[in-house]
């Protein structure tokens, strides 16, 4: 038998034509495909960002200085409040983005604004470096809270800043420390905060609440932070929860500020690789930071959609920094990115993929009807900085 086979082979009969070969081939194909499938044990539904409600809304503000805040009304339409430096702007979303109202900041707020939050449709919380204002637009009444933040220290400058959010008569904002001031010819620029901390101010008691001591997760306070690895905070008002995320970590910290309980949940994204190798000695090295951001997976700030009880976690996966046979490198903001849609238990429901160079992963605003996603814009020219698309995930 074996001699015959050897003979056949010698005679030139091709072994590829034998049934045994076909059997082996099919077994190999099945095994290979199973192995490929096993690389992603948790099936995450991936979809492209095609379900647009409105392709383009351009809000009538050319310059939005430090972001935007939205206030969702449980009525027919949503109302948005923006701050663009000198004015509070209010528009009602009905598809065309026409402005509804413009309110100038009270004259008493003269120093640099660092945070803004609409509490109701008529009252706003406004944050400056050392003061918090509650401003009632109709009655034009203003209440001033002096924050217990001393401005100058030997190492640098301390100030209160974004993100500012108010709920249950508590104002949450970050206290930035050790900030260097670059006093340029034109204006004062604050730079390089080596750390920032959550600060809670009780508006009813007119004092800062010390819920920091021993109760917030140590990770939030026990290490340096910087914008490329700094913490983000999201609030779930119904559950009285502060939700903290880091760009480099799959861990989400949920702190209930009424019960003072803390939970840690890990986002089960099999593609994301947690990384904690950022060299804090190089916080002033832009080339290092740029390369590091591209070559490592990064989460961006978590957003809560109270209308659908779900969270949106933008994620940018790692890639090579240098482009082969090219004089150019990959820019972080040019990369394709995704939104992980998480349910109320932070389990991934689906992943929505966005192309690079079109939408901005840092400008996501959940609405009652759809989700606003800002268009990509040049950081300095601010072109398209007020242009949004509305998606239905």
């Amino acid at each position, binding site marked *: 038998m074996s001699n015959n086979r050897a003979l056949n082979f010698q005679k030139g009969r091709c072994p590829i034509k034998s049934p045994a070969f076909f059997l082996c081939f099919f077994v190999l194909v099945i095994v290979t495909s199973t192995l490929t499938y096993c690389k992603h044990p948790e099936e995450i539904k991936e979809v492209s960002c095609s379900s647009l409600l409105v392709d383009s809304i351009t809000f009538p503000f050319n310059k939005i200085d430090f972001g935007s805040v939205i206030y969702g009304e449980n009525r027919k339409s949503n109302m948005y409040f923006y701050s663009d430096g000198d004015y509070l702007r209010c528009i009602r979303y009905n598809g065309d983005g026409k402005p509804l109202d413009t309110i100038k900041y009270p004259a008493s707020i003269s120093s640099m604004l660092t945070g803004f939050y609409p509490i109701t449709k008529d009252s706003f919380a406004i944050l400056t470096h050392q003061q918090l204002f509650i401003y009632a637009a109709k009655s034009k009444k203003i209440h001033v809270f002096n924050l217990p933040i001393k401005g100058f220290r030997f190492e640098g400058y301390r100030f209160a800043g974004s993100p500012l959010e108010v709920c249950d008569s508590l104002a949450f904002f970050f206290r930035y420390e050790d900030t260097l001031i670059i006093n340029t010819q034109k204006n004062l620029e604050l730079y390089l905060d080596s750390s920032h901390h959550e600060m809670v101010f009780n508006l009813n008691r007119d004092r800062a609440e010390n819920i920091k001591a021993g109760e917030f997760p140590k990770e939030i306070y026990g290490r340096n932070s910087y914008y490329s690895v700094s913490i983000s905070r999201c609030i779930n008002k119904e559950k009285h929860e502060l939700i903290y995320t880091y760009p480099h970590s799959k861990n989400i910290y949920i702190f209930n500020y009424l019960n003072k309980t803390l939970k840690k949940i890990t986002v089960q994204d099999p593609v994301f690789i947690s990384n904690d190798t950022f060299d804090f000695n190089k916080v002033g090295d832009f*080339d290092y930071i740029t390369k590091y951001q591209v070559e490592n997976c990064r989460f961006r700030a978590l957003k809560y959609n109270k209308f659908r009880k779900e969270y949106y976690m933008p994620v940018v996966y790692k890639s090579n920094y240098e482009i082969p046979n090219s*004089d150019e490198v990959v820019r972080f903001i040019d990369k394709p990115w995704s939104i992980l849609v998480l349910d109320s238990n932070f389990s991934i429901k689906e992943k929505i993929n966005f192309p690079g160079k079109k939408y901005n992963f840092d400008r996501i605003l959940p609405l009652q009807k759809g989700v606003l996603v800002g268009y990509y814009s040049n950081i300095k020219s601010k072109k398209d900085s007020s242009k949004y698309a509305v998606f239905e995930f």
Partner: protein
Amino acid sequence: MRYSSFSLCFFFLLFTLGCNQQNTRYQKETEIFNRYLKTTRFHINNNESYLFICTPGTGCAGCDEHLYSVFCGMKSDNILLLTSSREGIFDTSAILKSRIYFDSTSKLDRINLPIRNASVVFYEKGEITGITSVNPNSPDSIDFKINEWLKTHKD
């Protein structure tokens, strides 16, 4: 005899390589930068030395402003500003504008050179001899290097 002539050749080769090493330190960067100047049609004289002040759209605004103010204070025709950001450019005089190369393609933001923050590229007769970026902790520290360059390139 054969052995010693081989050694002689070897040391001659090493010596030649050693002499050329100074120019090859920024060889890759020079090639990239020269191609960039060519594709963006920024014309320079390859027999002259230049100091390029680069402010890409990726750096800190304060660092850009610092270098911009340095640039405005310099009268040499061989100090050029390469920028992809229009901010501030239109406030300048016509003389200064002639020394500003505005990169409307924003290639400056993506070029594979260590200039993600406001930087200075020292350029001697067609070759890069140094690249220094502004340190946000001490933006003034770059002034020393610029002044050193100015001292050696007075004419």
